[in-house]
């Protein structure tokens, strides 16, 4: 057997680790065993493992699978990165930001378990994003006013409101791209 780490020297040391209650044997050569234990930071290897194991245990229950299949034959998938919900559970990671949108209905269940029952962000908002929300609200209100003006056959005012809304839409477009 060769060393799992350097894959060069023969493995002479067996390191037994208990990861999430599961016993794992690792075989290293003397050089790597010395290197890896205990200063080598293994957090990065273990963290994702733990998360995806947890997610799999929580969500790979047969009942949920069958209800999902009953709803549609297509597996739930994100179009931007092509990852399915199943893949997300297996890896314990998202493929892209759009996954959040694609799996929006399923995610609160995931977050509840990972974040102490919480499912909604209440912290900081990027500055640009606040402007975006505000612009959206302004445009909405202008549109409503425009409808009213049209209903009252006040076309001149409606045209002004339309132009204002267009200007804000333009800003939103530029702002959203550069914010």
């Amino acid at each position, binding site marked *: 057997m060769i060393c799992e780490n350097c894959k060069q020297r023969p493995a002479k040391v067996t390191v037994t*680790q*208990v*990861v999430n209650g599961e016993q794992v044997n690792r075989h290293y050569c*003397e*050089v790597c065993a*010395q*290197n890896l*234990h*205990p*200063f*080598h*930071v*293994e*957090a*990065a*290897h*273990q*963290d*994702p493992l733990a*998360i995806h194991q947890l*997610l799999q245990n929580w969500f790979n229950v047969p009942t949920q699978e069958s209800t999902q299949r009953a709803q549609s034959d297509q597996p739930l998938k994100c179009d*931007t*990165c*092509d*990852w399915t919900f199943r893949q997300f559970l297996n*890896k*314990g*990671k*998202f*493929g*892209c*930001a759009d996954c*959040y*949108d694609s799996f*929006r209905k399923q*995610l609160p269940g*995931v*977050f509840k378990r*990972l*974040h*102490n*029952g*919480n*499912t*909604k*962000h*209440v*912290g*900081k*908002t*990027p*500055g*640009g*994003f606040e402007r975006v*929300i505000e612009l959206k609200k302004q445009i909405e209100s202008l549109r409503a006013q425009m409808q009213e003006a049209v209903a009252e056959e006040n076309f001149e005012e409606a045209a002004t409101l339309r132009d204002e809304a267009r200007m804000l839409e333009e800003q939103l477009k530029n702002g*959203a*791209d*550069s*914010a």
Partner: protein
Amino acid sequence: MTIEKFLESSVSGWMDPRGEDSDIVMSTRIRLARNLRGYRFPLSFTENEAHQVDQLVTAALVDSAEKVGTTFSSIPMEKTTTLDRQILVEKHLISPNLAKGQIPGSVLLSEDEGISVMVNEEDHIRIQCLFPGLQLEEAYEQADTIDRIFEKELPYAFDEEFGYLTSCPTNTGTGLRASVMMHLPALTMTNQMGRIIQAIMRVGMVVRGIYGEGSEALGNVYQVSNQTTLGKTEEEILEDLQSITEQIIQKEREARETLLHSEQPVLADTLYRSLGVLTYARIISTDEAAKCLSDVRLGIDLGIITGVDVSILNECMIFMQPGFIQKYAGNSLQPNERDVFRAKMIRERLTIENKTTTKGEKPHDV
């Protein structure tokens, strides 16, 4: 500025022992995870996307660095040797994950190494700020400044419901991980750590040994950090961690008092023996060195050992790691040769220190 500057010295800004409770809290770290809209996450993106993200992020920070009052050096992983990457990991400047170099990424380091921004680790951007002692608010403020610089220049992936969108669902929301590195020898010696770790976990925090997870904390150094990032504001996360940290400090101080009053001669003997080992040993493993450094540090904190500067111990803790030892030796060493070299390095470092502080002054301050 070249990467050499960051590799040659084992001293980073965060090792400077100052700030409140710096005898127990060695350092404070804030990490913010951020991603750019319009690019897939590093786990699924193409090499082309990786390079674009790297360029965008690097340019955004380098252009506005003057706002933070420092300059940033960009160190691309592709152009860095495996050993040099390992050294950056040992200095806590990059993560082992980035060091693997599987994805084209880089790290942007501030001059004093207090700020490091990892590009294309698990997320596009990982802002990390390291401060000495317990300084959660200060460290967060700095990370927030960097965050606002990026936010002006680049479109973040953000969602009204879920907050900052991150690659791992455990970071979603604030993307904030706040952690404190604590030296807890008295709680460990009095067998209280197991109970404390369980209590901390119950309130949504995590404790781990700083060098590796699951394993026994080497050198009695533990890292306490928040686990929840969703449904709590940044301020709440920081306040909760601050309060837990203060309670642990209190417990550690109580345990130190108990040790000091119950078994003084035995304690002094143990701690001085460790100083003896560090000063005279010819062969020393990382485990033994870490244990002895912890003992000497405790000895200084308790006023039992005098004439050794704590910052030297912090430095030894870093440079005794395998990567540094290799780098200093200038060639690859067998494990046994490494232990010999490590003993020599620590010996020399302590001797230099002794020569400069034997003027009767007591540099410790409890």
